[in-house]
């Protein structure tokens, strides 16, 4: 199998479909064949939906036959897409990579997934994650770790590691992840993919298994910013089934160079810290320099409460997660063990949760229980909510001062080795130090590669573009503009 046979973008595939150079069935056959062999070494997928994917491809081909030749193809027509296995897809398993939901079958379909299908996408399979999206390496999956497609000894990042690796490994052209503290942007960086964390409320969370309801957002992975913008435009928008989805439309997302060049970019000094890899700092500075040399206005800014974001987040997230995960109690979802005859309700809860959750969910549920418990609530949870306000105020102030977008690193290191941080939760948490503030403030942020051409020796490094609430347009347009710098000279 030629590695490059599935190595193209959605834009390129659309051109081929428009010219009728290829059928959806041909494309999907190739992708499934490739994914089956390639994934043996990567482990991005928990399940491939090959049979129904091929049936869907045939149906799409028939649909196109019946179409007027001049009619536009739906935005994701015949595009192979994967979904993170914490999103519901009716009739399919949804495990959240947890033993507790190993056999759970979705009763309905998440809005974001339904929108992909309505736009013509073919759902290729469900991808691996850290159990209940808790982790930064995909090693905390109950069904085995995913490996980085560029170096199998390294992690792909997490928690959406399977979705990032599926795109970077050329097994799909796009995928969905969810980002609560960096779970799209950090694996995008470790795998050299493009990942967008939308503004809180831009994409419906209906059908996404809740981790921390005030922080979770669904977003796309793709190979280019243009492709990511296309997928985002499909999944974004208000949804009556999610009371926190915003009544804001997202269209015409990519604006022209002359407009985008007037944007003022801020670089926060607090995001370049001791302990980050020199190679990461150098790469991110090089990305900023490209904007500068091209004539953008770049200003140094300060976000003084950045260093407290990690503590703030790891109080708020476990608090919300401990409440959300209470529902997997062995009553409405699957039950792990047969109950002893004389067992009561409390016994059932304890057996189910004691045996079902892995180490990381257990840690976070206990932490959340602690910070919400009587006597500690004010010192921890209430304090963290106030600090969250200060972190949002920091961003608001620089935006009020005329900054349009903020450029930062995504994560302090490149992909680390499998096993390196697995037994040290605090050091694992620190890999999200540059992505967490964005979730606390509800902002949109894009993670995109500084350069192209990755290998085992040259692991990917991304940088981050943070925008104002609901200003995905500026974030994506800047990213799309940046990718022009990476095109080989003509």
């Amino acid at each position, binding site marked *: 199998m030629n590695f490059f046979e599935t190595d193209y973008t959605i834009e390129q595939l659309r051109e081929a479909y428009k010219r009728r150079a290829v059928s959806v069935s041909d494309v999907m056959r190739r992708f499934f064949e490739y994914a089956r062999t390639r994934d043996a070494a990567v482990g991005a997928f928990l399940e491939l939906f090959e049979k129904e994917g091929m049936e869907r491809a045939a149906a799409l081909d028939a649909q196109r036959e019946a179409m007027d030749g001049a009619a536009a193809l739906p935005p994701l027509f015949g595009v192979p897409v994967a979904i993170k296995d914490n999103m519901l897809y*009716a009739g399919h398993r949804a495990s959240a990579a947890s033993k507790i939901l190993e056999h*759970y*079958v*979705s*009763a*309905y379909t998440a809005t974001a997934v*339904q929108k992909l299908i309505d736009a013509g996408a073919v759902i290729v399979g469900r991808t691996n994650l850290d159990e209940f999206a808790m982790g930064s390496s995909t090693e905390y999956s109950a069904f085995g770790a995913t490996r980085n497609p560029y170096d199998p000894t390294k992690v792909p990042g997490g928690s959406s590691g399977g979705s990032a690796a599926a795109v970077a490994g050329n097994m799909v052209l796009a995928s969905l992840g969810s980002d609560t503290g960096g779970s799209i942007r950090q694996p995008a960086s470790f795998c050299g993919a493009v990942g967008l964390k939308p*503004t*809180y*409320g831009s994409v419906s969370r209906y059908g996404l298994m809740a981790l921390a309801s*005030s922080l979770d957002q669904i977003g796309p992975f793709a190979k280019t910013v243009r492709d990511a913008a296309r997928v985002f435009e499909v999944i974004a928008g208000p949804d*009556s089934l999610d*009371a*926190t*989805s*915003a009544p804001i439309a997202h269209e015409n997302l990519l604006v022209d160079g002359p407009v985008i060049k007037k944007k003022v970019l801020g670089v926060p000094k607090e995001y370049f810290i001791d302990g980050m890899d020199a190679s990461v700092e150098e790469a991110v500075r090089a990305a900023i320099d490209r904007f500068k040399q091209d004539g953008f206005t770049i200003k140094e800014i300060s976000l003084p409460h950045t260093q*407290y974001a*990690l503590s*703030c987040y*790891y109080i708020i997230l476990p608090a919300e997660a*401990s409440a959300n995960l*209470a529902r997997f*109690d*062995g*009553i*409405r*979802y*699957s*039950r792990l063990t047969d*109950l002893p005859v004389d067992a*009561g*309700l409390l016994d059932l*809860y*304890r*057996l189910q949760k*004691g045996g079902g*959750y892995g180490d990381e969910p*257990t840690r976070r*549920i*206990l*932490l959340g*229980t*602690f910070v919400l*418990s009587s006597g500690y609530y004010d*010192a*921890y949870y209430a*304090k*963290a*909510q*106030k*600090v*969250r*306000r*200060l972190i*949002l105020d920091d961003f608001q102030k620089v935006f009020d001062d005329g900054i349009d977008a903020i450029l930062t690193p995504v994560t302090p290191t490149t992909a680390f080795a499998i096993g390196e941080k697995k037994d040290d*939760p*605090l050091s694992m948490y620190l890999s999200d130090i540059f992505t967490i503030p964005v979730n606390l403030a*509800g902002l949109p942020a894009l993670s995109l590669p500084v350069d192209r051409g990755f290998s085992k020796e040259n692991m990917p490094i991304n940088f981050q573009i943070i925008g104002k*609430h*609901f200003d995905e347009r500026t974030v994506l347009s800047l990213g799309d503009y940046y990718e022009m710098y990476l095109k080989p000279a003509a």
Partner: protein
Amino acid sequence: MLLDDATLDHLFDLARIRREEDPVRRKKLLQDLSKILDHFQELQQINTDNVEPLSGGTFLVNRTRPDESAVRDEIDVAAQRDAAVKQFPDAEHGYLKVPPVFE
């Protein structure tokens, strides 16, 4: 903040999780949680007098809809209900079966 054994058991009970009995795993858990809670102490340095707590990131308020079944039109309501009931570990006549709540 050093977590002690009694507090750990209290947390297990509050969270309805069976207590960890393995001494090695228990020790590791206590160490990990204590280390994380120690890290949180840095928040006490920040002056948050007169700061309003923030529970979400954006300025929007929840949007409500009429109190009616919100199932998408094209979906068969009965089929969706059946699919949910099918996931119950224990059901009778289409109802969720729960162990006795009161002794």
